[in-house]
């Protein structure tokens, strides 16, 4: 009986705070993406032709985001019937966009005009009980091209 109460409390807490945190995070991401729109990122391996003299430097950004209790349960249930796991999709999307933003911010601080050869690396760093995903890490890195001002 107590177990059940604890379970539903955790579920409720996870749902409320998890949703709030996610909504807040997405809002912040959209805002910051607008601010950093001028800085272009490419997954191309080489810089576009005719960009003039530049210095290059490695930049990167990482983030670790944890799933909340509700999402874990929802994903567990989804595991029974199969199909899209929305709970994890939004988690990964958040993590990727945040990592790219952090990389862009580092590049911007260094005065870069663009970032080329952006690579994304995802790792699930902790596994909870029953080998479920606890939290994911996303690392985004690329080469920032910093124009040389003469």
């Amino acid at each position, binding site marked *: 009986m107590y177990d059940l109460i604890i379970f539903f409390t955790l579920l409720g807490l996870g749902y409320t705070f998890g949703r709030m945190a996610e909504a807040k995070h997405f809002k912040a991401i959209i805002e910051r993406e607008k601010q950093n729109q001028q800085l272009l990122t490419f997954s191309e*391996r080489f810089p576009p032709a005719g960009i003039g003299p530049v210095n290059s430097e490695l930049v990167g950004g990482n*983030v670790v985001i944890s799933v*909340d209790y509700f999402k874990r349960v929802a994903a567990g249930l989804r595991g029974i019937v199969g199909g899209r796991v929305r709970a994890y999709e939004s988690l990964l999307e958040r993590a990727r966009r945040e990592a790219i933003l952090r990389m862009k911010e580092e590049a911007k601080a260094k005065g870069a005009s663009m970032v080329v050869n952006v690579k994304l690396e995802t790792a699930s760093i902790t596994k909870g009980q029953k080998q479920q995903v606890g939290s994911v890490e996303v690392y985004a890195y690329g080469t920032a091209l910093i124009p040389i001002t003469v």
Partner: protein
Amino acid sequence: MIISNIEILPGKRISKHLGLVQGSTVRTKHVGRDLMAGLKNIFGGELLGYTELLQDARKEATERMVRQAEAIGANAVINVRFSTSSIAAGAAELFVYGTAVIIE
């Protein structure tokens, strides 16, 4: 030391390739952080402790790679790649490798 993850260095000429250099570090979380992470696993959100931990670990791995490159007389490392592998529960290896080169 210039580090880049593309194969060329814009505006510079590579005069010599010196081969692969690498750096790695294995890190594990500590109990305090783990406790906080446990709480966060209920509420969701960013695990700042882990973010910093991994960032530091990457920096260290990169430094090791740079030291190795310096030891063989390189002044730049190109085509750098990062990779992560979890080797045991709670421990992760961060690995970085690239090609050491001499630029003019």
